[in-house]
């Protein structure tokens, strides 16, 4: 340890109460700017990484932001639905692999994402335990979901009750956890993945109940030959089991069922260009480049961040003024000590260096404390704001 550093440390340690107070003041002054910087940096990095891994996203006309945020990050408002037939048509001529996504519901507060096995292939998701959902009513959990809900293959998870006023929605369904995915550090870690058809059941588009012919008369609206029309009083299954699996069915044409978006992975650049050109003129389907939309979102975020940056500059100036006052008061309070250095013959520069080292240690400790606390606050904010 150099001499000045040793003496500076001794002074700060001897006056530890005063030193800690200074460190705390500085740390608090620097905390918010550091936390905001950290949060925005992480936010931007994660958003960009996810967008870069998704060449195109398709959805119904409407908000670009809602579509991208829902399909890629499972967040934000639910976009207008697109039929799965329209989604599949994008890749019908082999130009792209289309992965439909339906996310409207939650389970244990985590987004339930209905999709096809291609999703896991395209995202490179590995199964850490168990298997991917193979039949109706099964679910694979993202790594964080499994940890937070303390669930493993073999457990069950009840989907959350949707809005009371959404009369079309299905009842909560008990999902069977059959797998847990490996951690990716992205939004997939917080999701509950189910088969697309299971997601439709959650939407009330498919359901299961006992044999219509064996229903009590009060649950039957009409009987005509073999045809039985059941009333709303019929009891639907709240869980899909091997015993009742055959009783689940969908009404209407499968192709007409909704998805909230579709991830489109073109075969090559040419296919990508062709698809973009093709869907530029379509008014019923929008095909977006997520990276572009994310940059627009980040543009708004960075504009907001400029206010924080301006605030950071003011806080920095204020902290510098505060330190100057402390330095001046220090010189006054320590006049006798500084005079002793002078009488011994210690050079002014060496004394100045000593004071600067002391101040540097305080600033360093303050900045380090702010960095640690800032990272913690950023992590908390990230969890609160982004749910990751």
């Amino acid at each position, binding site marked *: 340890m150099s*001499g*000045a550093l*040793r*003496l500076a440390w*001794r*002074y700060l*340690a*001897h*006056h530890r109460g005063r030193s800690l107070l200074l460190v705390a003041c500085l740390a608090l002054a620097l905390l918010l700017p550091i936390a905001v910087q950290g949060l925005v940096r992480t936010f931007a990095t994660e958003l960009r990484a996810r967008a870069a891994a998704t060449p195109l996203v398709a959805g119904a006309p409407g908000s670009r932001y809602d579509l991208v945020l829902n399909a890629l990050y499972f967040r934000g408002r639910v976009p207008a639905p697109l039929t799965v037939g329209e989604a599949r048509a994008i890749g019908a001529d082999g130009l792209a692999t289309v992965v439909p996504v339906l996310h409207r519901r939650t389970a244990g507060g985590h987004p339930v994402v209905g999709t096809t096995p291609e999703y896991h292939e395209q995202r490179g998701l590995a199964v850490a335990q168990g298997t991917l959902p193979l039949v109706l009513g099964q679910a694979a959990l993202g790594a964080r979901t499994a940890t937070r809900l303390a669930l493993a293959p073999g457990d069950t998870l009840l989907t959350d009750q949707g809005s009371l006023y959404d009369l079309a929605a299905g009842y909560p369904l008990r999902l069977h956890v059959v797998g847990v995915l490996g951690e990716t550090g992205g939004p997939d870690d917080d999701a509950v993945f189910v088969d697309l058809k299971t997601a439709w059941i959650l939407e009330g588009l498919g359901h299961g109940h006992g044999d219509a012919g064996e229903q009590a008369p009060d649950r039957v609206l009409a009987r005509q030959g073999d045809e039985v029309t059941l009333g709303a009083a019929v009891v639907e299954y709240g869980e899909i089991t091997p015993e009742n699996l055959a009783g689940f069915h969908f009404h209407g044409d499968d192709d007409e069922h909704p998805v909230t978006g579709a991830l489109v992975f073109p075969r090559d650049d040419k296919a990508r260009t062709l698809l973009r050109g093709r869907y530029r003129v379509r008014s019923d389907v929008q095909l977006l480049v997520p990276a572009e939309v994310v940059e627009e979102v980040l543009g708004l975020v960075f504009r907001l961040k400029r206010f924080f940056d301006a605030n950071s500059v003011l806080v920095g100036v204020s902290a510098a003024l505060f330190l100057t006052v402390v330095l001046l008061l220090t010189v006054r309070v320590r006049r*006798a*000590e500084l005079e*002793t*250095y*002078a*009488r*011994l*013959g*210690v*050079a*002014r520069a*060496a*004394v100045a260096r*000593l004071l600067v080292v002391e101040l540097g240690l305080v600033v360093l400790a303050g900045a380090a404390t702010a960095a640690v606390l800032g990272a913690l606050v950023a992590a908390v904010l990230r969890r609160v704001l982004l749910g990751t």
Partner: protein
Amino acid sequence: MPDAAPRSDAPPALEVTDLRFAYGPGAFELDLPAWRLVPGERAACIGPSGCGKTTLLDLLAGIRLPDAGRVAFEGVAWSELDEAARRRRRLARVGFVFQELELLEHLTARDNALVAHHLAPDLGPLAAAEARLDELARGLGLERLLDRRPGGLSRGERQRVALARALVTSPSLVLADEPTGNLDPRAKRGALELLLAEVERLGAALVVVTHDHDLLDAFGTVFDLQQLAPRPSGAPSGTPADEAEPPA
């Protein structure tokens, strides 16, 4: 204990010529026409409180500059040097035991003694200074006290730490402002003997301000500031030094 080997033919360690100093009009004034101290010479400065003994030491160390006249240390007048050079020279060549000791409360006795080496690495390797301090500490009975702060030391122990700080740089001039003032008679004699032995070993010149007339026989020159007349130690009675007042 007279001077071991003062070399009167050697170039003077200190040479004062027509020194005049005052703190302001009507205030205390110091006026010393001429004085010379050779390497190895020991001088005691006596005089009543307030007669300017501490001020004289400050002038000899280049801490203050005279209003008129010249104080030369090893042939170079302090007034010919700028502030930085004076400090550099003082730190490297002058050991000073201050009247108020001026130990730094936040440092241990060891760091207090080595403060010059900590802040001026060009004084030499710290390890060598630490070895020398250990040697001095043994002589001063400080070995087990080096890790204590001044607040944990008695006045006498603090005084010995101040002595160690003054000697650890191996100075060629040692100035001590009542270095034994608060020590018991036994410790006083021991500290003085160590000071004198170290000064002799270094071949350094020594100027001690003291009110303790029992110690004067250890000095080759006794200087009564009130009379402004240096005289050899053991001069006949009736000289001004004998008339010096006891400590206030």
